C-alpha cells in the first residue's frame, strides 16, 4: 500500500532521514519506533505529502506522491503530532469542513460525519466548540478528522502522547479497531504500545532504518534457545561442564543471589538432539547438582530495540 524507496530528507546540512526504504502492506498496523529525534515525524510528514523528500520516491497504492499528489493524498488520513484543529469551530462543522476538503460528496457528508463521530465516541460533544474540549477529546477529533473521506491508509503520529492512562487505553483500542479496515502507520517511542498494537515494526535511529521485521520475528531469538537456570553448584565447577555440552554455544554467569547457587544464561542451538533441556538435565544428574529453576527466555521488544540501536553505534 505504501512504499518508500531510498527516501532522504535534508534540512540544510542536517540529514533528518537518510535513504529510508520500507513497505507497509495493505491491512496491517505498522509501527514506527525510535527515540526522540530519530526521524519519525519527518518520515510521516513526507509520506503524507506535507514535506517533499530531498531525494527518493514515495508510492501510495502504486502512485507517486510527487507527480500524483492529489490522488495519493485522497488515500491518506493524517493525524499529525499536534492535531490540526480550529478552536473556533464546533466538532461537527470542523468535520464537515474536512470532509469538503477531502472531496466527500456533499449529500453524503452528514451521514459520514455521524458515522465517524460514533466510531470515535464524539457524538455527545458534536455541538461543542473544539477550543473548549479536553485533551483526550481533542485527540479523538484529530483521529476523526483523519477518518474523513474514508481513506484506506491512516497515518498517526504519536497518537497517545500526553493522554491520561485511561484515555491511552481507549485510543489504543480505537486504533486496533481501525486496523481491521485500514492500513495504519503510527509512530511511537513507547515500546509496549508498539508491541500491543503492531504486526510489523520499523526501528529508526538517527534517521536511518536499522531493523524492519514482523513483530513475531523481532521478539523471536531465531535458531538459538535461551535458557536461564539456577543450579546448586559452585560456578567454577559448573561452567566448564556446561561449556562441554554439544548444544551450548555460550554460557554467561549472572550475579548469584544465594551463595553456592549459580545463575547462568545459556545460549543453545534450538534443534540439537537430544534437546538442550534434556542434555542439561542429564549433565546435572551426573554432577549431582540440583536444578532450582529453568526458564526459557524470549526477547522483549525492548531488548531487540536496544540491541538494534547499540549495534548501530
Amino acid at each position, binding site marked *: 500500500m505504501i512504499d518508500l524507496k531510498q527516501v532522504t530528507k535534508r534540512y540544510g546540512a542536517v540529514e533528518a532521514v537518510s535513504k529510508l526504504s520500507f513497505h507497509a502492506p495493505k491491512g496491517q498496523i505498522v509501527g514506527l519506533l525510535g527515540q526522540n529525534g530519530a526521524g519519525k515525524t519527518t518520515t510521516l510528514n513526507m509520506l503524507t505529502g*506535507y514535506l517533499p523528500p530531498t531525494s527518493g520516491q514515495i508510492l501510495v497504492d502504486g502512485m507517486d506522491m510527487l507527480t500524483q499528489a492529489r490522488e495519493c*493524498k*485522497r488515500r491518506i488520513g*493524517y493525524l499529525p503530532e499536534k492535531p490540526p484543529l*480550529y478552536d473556533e*469551530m464546533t466538532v461537527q462543522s470542523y468535520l464537515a*469542513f*474536512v470532509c469538503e*476538503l477531502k472531496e466527500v460528496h456533499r449529500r453524503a457528508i452528514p451521514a459520514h460525519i455521524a458515522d465517524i463521530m460514533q466510531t470515535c465516541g464524539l457524538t455527545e460533544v458534536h455541538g461543542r466548540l473544539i477550543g473548549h474540549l479536553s485533551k483526550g477529546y481533542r485527540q479523538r477529533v484529530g483521529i476523526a478528522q483523519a477518518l474523513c473521506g474514508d481513506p484506506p491508509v491512516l497515518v498517526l503520529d504519536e497518537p497517545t502522547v500526553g493522554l491520561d492512562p485511561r484515555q491511552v487505553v481507549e485510543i489504543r483500542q480505537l486504533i486496533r479497531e481501525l486496523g481491521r479496515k485500514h492500513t495504519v502507520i503510527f509512530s511511537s517511542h513507547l515500546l509496549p504500545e508498539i508491541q500491543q498494537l503492531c504486526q510489523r515494526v520499523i526501528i529508526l535511529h538517527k534517521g536511518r532504518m536499522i531493523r524492519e521485521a514482523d513483530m513475531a520475528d523481532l521478539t523471536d531469538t531465531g535458531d538459538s534457545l535461551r535458557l536461564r537456570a539456577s543450579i546448586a553448584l559452585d560456578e567454577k565447577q559448573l561452567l566448564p561442564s556446561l561449556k562441554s555440552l554439544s548444544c551450548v554455544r555460550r554460557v554467561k554467569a549472572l550475579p548469584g543471589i544465594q551463595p553456592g547457587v549459580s545463575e547462568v544464561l545459556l545460549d543453545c542451538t534450538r534443534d540439537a538432539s537430544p534437546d538442550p533441556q534434556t542434555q542439561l538435565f542429564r549433565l546435572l544428574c551426573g554432577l549431582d547438582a540440583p536444578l532450582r529453576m529453568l526458564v526459557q527466555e524470549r526477547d522483549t521488544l525492548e531488548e531487540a530495540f536496544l540491541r538494534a540501536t547499540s549495534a548501530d553505534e
Partner: protein
Amino acid sequence: MLSIWKRELQGYFFTPVGYVFMGVFLTLSSVMFYLTIMQQRSSDLLTFIGLMSYLWMLLCPVLTMRLLAEEKQRRTDQLLLTSPVSLGGMVMGKYLSAVTVMLVTVLLTLLFVLIVGIYGQVYPGEMLVGYLGFILQGCAFIALDLFISGCASNQVTAAVMAFGANFVVWMLDLLESSISVSFIRDILSFFSLYARSEPFLMGQLSFASIGYDLSFAAAFLALTIHVLDSRRYRGI
C-alpha cells in the same frame, strides 16, 4: 478552494476580526464623509473615495494577518497541505475570502452615495470608475498583505510587517515628489499604488491602471504560493 473560502469567511464572522474590520472601516469613512461631503456641502464623491482609499493601507493587515500566519502557528497547515487541495487553490481560497469581506464593506459604503444622491447630484459613470479603482486598490493591498502573512510566523508579526509594507507603498508616493533624479522618480512612481489610482479619481477609466492593479495582485499571489512551496522544501 471553495471549502477554504467558505471556512475563512465563516472564520471572519465567528471571530471578531470581520466585525472589527467592517466597524472600524465604516466609522472612519463616516468621519471622512462628514469632513469632505457634509461639512463642505459638496457632492464630490471622488475626493471622498480618494480619502477612503487610505483606509486600505491601515486596515488590510487586519483582514489578512491570520490567514496564513495563524495556520502555521497552529499547525493546521498540516491538514490543508495533506488534503487533496493544491497550494494555489488554498491561497486563492483565502485571498478571495478576504476580498469578499472587503466587497461587502464597500457595498455598505454605497449608503454614502445614496445620501449624496438624495441631497445632491451623483454622476453614475464617474462614481463607478471611482469605485472600480477603489476596489482594485483594495485587492492589490490584500494580495501584498497576504504575501506577508505567508512569510510571517505569527499573527502579530504578520500585522506589523504588513502595515510596514503598506506604509512603504504609501511613502513611495511622497518620496517620489521629493527626489529630483528623474529615473529614480520613475521607478518609485511605477511601484506606487496611490499614483496608479489617480486617473480613477479624476473619473478616467484607465486600462493601464486596471492592468497594473490586477498584475500587482497576481504577482503577490504567485509570490505567496512560491514562498509557501519553498518553505515546504526547506521544512521550516
